[in-house]
């Protein structure tokens, strides 16, 4: 343990990054870079061969992630990462397929696919980075924007309701549901590793700061990260119906945890059994 060594912890992570494309496009204070590092850490420690890991994303800031990760990666069209991933996973069940995309991509335009992939219990992993905004396009509201927020398309305050992602995922039947932040790097990495082991639909929401959302709602990223330190509560047994988030409210805790762990058989497992049945094997 003696001797001068740099990068003991960071070298393995760098080995799975497309460093030639760094520095990445994410803003100062954006949590996505950290999420990418946690994902890579989990991949390295997963026990699954690296070449079997595949990343799929849609469109948005978070969806730029595969472009920086040195794995087979598919940056497809807005909202359609999940069906692409399901098609790929179903025909190649040797692969570990992870969707990394944002709140708008997965839950607005991609909402129907999220709904049904959870219902089918497709064996894919979905990491939703929730920054409560459409960052890439300049700061419009989305289905998780906190009511009252100022965004470019809600200049007088957002008047819609917002999804509570863990609640939604749990109700839809996901086998694994968790929520963490880019400050909780160890817990996040551990949760991603758990995700890989799940046979079925696995969802992790990562609540993230966003410079764009922050500028319009007086929530600088550093302040959000401090809130992640000071105002988060880890409660794996939390009543999911009550864990919606309001970053602007200093009295409202942000509840984190590994909330759901179920073992309903995945669609792909059942589909394999269908083959035997169809051939008269019962």
């Amino acid at each position, binding site marked *: 343990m003696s001797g001068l060594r740099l990068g003991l912890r960071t070298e393995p992570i760098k080995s799975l990054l497309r460093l030639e494309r760094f520095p990445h496009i994410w803003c100062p204070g954006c949590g996505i870079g950290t999420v990418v590092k946690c994902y890579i850490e989990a991949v390295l420690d997963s026990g699954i061969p690296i070449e079997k890991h595949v990343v799929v994303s849609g469109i948005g800031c978070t969806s730029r992630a595969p472009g920086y990760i040195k794995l087979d990666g598919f*940056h497809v069209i807005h909202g359609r990462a999940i*069906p692409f991933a399901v098609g790929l996973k179903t025909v190649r069940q040797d692969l570990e397929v992870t969707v990394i995309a944002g709140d708008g991509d997965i839950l607005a335009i991609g909402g129907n696919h999220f709904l049904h992939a959870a219902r089918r219990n497709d064996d894919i992993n979905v990491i939703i980075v929730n920054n409560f905004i459409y960052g890439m396009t300049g700061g419009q509201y989305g289905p998780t924007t906190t009511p009252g927020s100022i965004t470019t398309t809600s200049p007088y305050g957002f008047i819609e309701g917002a999804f509570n992602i863990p609640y939604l995922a749990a109700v839809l039947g996901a086998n694994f549901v968790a929520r963490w932040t880019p400050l909780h790097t160890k817990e996040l990495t551990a949760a991603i590793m758990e995700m890989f082991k799940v046979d079925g639909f696995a969802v992790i929401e990562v609540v993230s700061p966003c410079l764009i959302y922050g500028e319009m709602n007086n929530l600088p990223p550093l302040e959000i990260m401090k809130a992640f330190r000071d105002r988060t509560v880890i409660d794996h047994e939390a009543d999911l119906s009550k864990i919606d988030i309001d970053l602007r409210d200093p009295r409202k805790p942000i509840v984190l945890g590994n909330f759901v762990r179920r073992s309903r058989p995945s669609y792909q497992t059942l589909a394999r059994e269908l083959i035997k049945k169809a051939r008269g094997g019962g």
Partner: protein
Amino acid sequence: MSERISLLAAERAEEWLLKPGVYFMQGNIAAAEAALIAGCRFFAGYPITPSNEIAEHMARRLPQVGGYFIQFEDEIASINAIIGAAYGGVKSMTATSGPGFSLMQEAIGLAAMIEAPIVIIDVQRAGPSTGIPTLVGQGDIMQAKWGSHGDYEIVAYLPNSVQEMFDLTIEAFNTAWEYRVPVVVLSDQTVGHMIEKLRVPPLEEIRIVERRKPEVPPEEYLPFDSRYLVPPMAVAGEGYRFHVTALTHDDRGYPSTRHEVSEKLVTRLVRKIRENEKVIGRYESIMVDDADLVVVAYGITSRSALKAVREARREGLKVGLFRPITAWPFPYWGLREAVDRGASILVVEINMGQMVHVVREYYANITEIHSMPWAPGEVPRPHVILRKIKEVYPR
């Protein structure tokens, strides 16, 4: 870590394929069986009349050959799923009709951009919009080529019989996997639902194309290597660790906003089909060599038009039939000789005039081109086509 099951249970798949022989079969079913013979092992679809027989047949047959069938929540999920499957290295297909085909357009652009081989069977019906779900139409000709935004090329086949539903579906897979391009089988409700004689040849006689695999080690592999018109295709999970994006990208697959990158990419995407148009494009010419009027008709309309053309001949008119078997690339060169000789053209189609525009693009400045549009919902009968032939026949 539970053991992951790899590719499909491909063993003994051949036992479950349609055996060579003569059958009396519905067009939609023939296309489904052809897909299985071509190696299709994944079907994703959404019910829509008049294509449902394809999905239903695949639901029953795919597990038997070790494949997977998923009826998704909508057409958009279906088309994206088959693109995902293609990048897993598995031949995949969907089937739909006009309204579903419209929903799929964005993803067809994706498939063209990331050069994913997929096959879409569009059993056209009367439109526009919901139209008449149970009756014939040919209104998707233009949509097949221009439906998505931006510049790209696709290939589209026009079967006019159950045999062609079989043969052209196999050819569709071959074209898709050879050129890494989305391919549409533009069938129609009548051809899809008709029941006719089908001859299935022995498997050894059927040409099946597989993807061209990379010939270099992963460190040297460029997923969109522009030194090739059609780059060799790596698939996920084999160690190539490549990046695919629908953003305009360079040879490495990385996004770029530079104009020279856009020019290189978009040019290659269209060139790979345009430069091979005479290999990919297909047509049939009947009695065209001495014709003064060439009737251009495709799909079910060509069957009715052929009868009209034969009747016209019996009445002493020198009429021929030019039947495009690919809508795209449009086999314009097959009309060249007749047009140079002075023949005029009559395009008959079950729409308000779609292919006629393409014919005009090539030959309007050389000869007379007449359009016989026919409102969707019915095949124009031979005597109606004959009446039009006589009306426009050159004096």
